C-alpha cells in the first residue's frame, strides 16, 4: 500500500503576512451540510441545540458554541462544523462534506480593505457584525464569508479552489499594502 500523506487544503501556501494583514489557514477536518426538510427547521434546531448547543442559523447568520458552529450556507442549508451531529433522520438531508472545504482566516487592520477589493458587499463593521455570514463572491468564485471579530474574517471555498483563494487574497493584500 502506498504511503499516503494527508495534507491540509492550504498546506505550503499559508500563513503569510502582507502589510497589516495576516492570512492563515483554518483547518476544517469535517463538515456536514444540513438541509432541513419542509417544516422541520425547528425540530432540527432543537436537535442541534441538545447535541451541540448550537441552533440552525437564520439566513446570513451563524451559531456557535465552543468548537461547534453552524454557518448558513444558502437557501435552507447550513454547514455544521466541529461537532458530532445528532441523528437527523426524517428531519433533514445531511451530506457529509468531509474535509472538502478550504477556509482562510484574514485578520489585521487592512482586512476590510482587502476584502473590499474582492467581494461586492459592504463588509464594514457597522453592517456586517461578528457572527454575520454571507454567501457571495470572491472575485469570480462563490464563497462563504463570515466575520470572526473586529478585524478578522473567515473565507470558505471548495477545497479545489484553495490555491485560487490564496492567490486572490494575496494579490488584493499586496495592492492594499502598496498604497501604504
Amino acid at each position, binding site marked *: 500500500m502506498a504511503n499516503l500523506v494527508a495534507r491540509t487544503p492550504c498546506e505550503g501556501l499559508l500563513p503569510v503576512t502582507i502589510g497589516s494583514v495576516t492570512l492563515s489557514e483554518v483547518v476544517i477536518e469535517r463538515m456536514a451540510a444540513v438541509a432541513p426538510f419542509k417544516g422541520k427547521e425547528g425540530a432540527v434546531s432543537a436537535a442541534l441545540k441538545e447535541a451541540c448547543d448550537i441552533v440552525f442559523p437564520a439566513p446570513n447568520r451563524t451559531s456557535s458554541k465552543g468548537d461547534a458552529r453552524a454557518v448558513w450556507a444558502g*437557501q435552507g442549508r447550513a454547514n455544521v462544523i466541529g461537532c458530532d451531529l445528532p441523528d437527523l433522520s426524517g428531519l433533514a438531508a445531511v451530506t457529509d462534506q468531509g474535509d472538502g472545504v478550504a477556509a482562510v482566516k484574514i485578520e489585521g487592520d487592512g482586512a476590510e480593505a482587502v476584502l473590499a477589493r474582492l467581494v461586492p458587499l459592504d463588509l464594514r463593521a457597522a453592517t456586517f457584525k461578528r457572527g454575520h455570514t454571507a454567501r457571495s463572491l470572491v472575485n469570480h468564485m462563490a464563497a462563504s464569508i463570515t466575520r470572526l471579530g473586529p478585524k478578522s474574517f473567515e473565507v470558505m471555498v471548495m477545497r479545489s479552489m484553495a490555491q485560487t483563494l490564496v492567490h486572490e487574497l494575496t494579490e488584493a493584500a499586496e495592492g492594499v499594502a502598496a498604497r501604504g
Partner: protein
Amino acid sequence: MRLICPHCGERDRREFTYQGAAEILDRPSREVGNDDWADYLHLRENPAGETKDMWYHDPCGAWIVVHRDTVTHAVHSGELASEVRK
C-alpha cells in the same frame, strides 16, 4: 444593476444568472392541447416597461422572481420562486 434576493438583500448583478420570463412558473396542465403547450414553451412577451423574470442567486442557491422595469431600469422587488408558485 442590483437585484433583490429575499434571503441576502440587495446584491450586485454579477452574483445572479438570468433564466428567462417568469411565465415559466405557470405550467399548463397535462390535459391542455398542443397549442397551449407550444405557447407556454415558445411564446414570450417582449415588454417595454414592467416585467417579471427568473434569476438564480448563484452563491445562495435561491430561484428568484424579479419584478423590474425595462424602461426605467428600476428593480422593484424579488420574491422566492417557490413562494410565487404556490
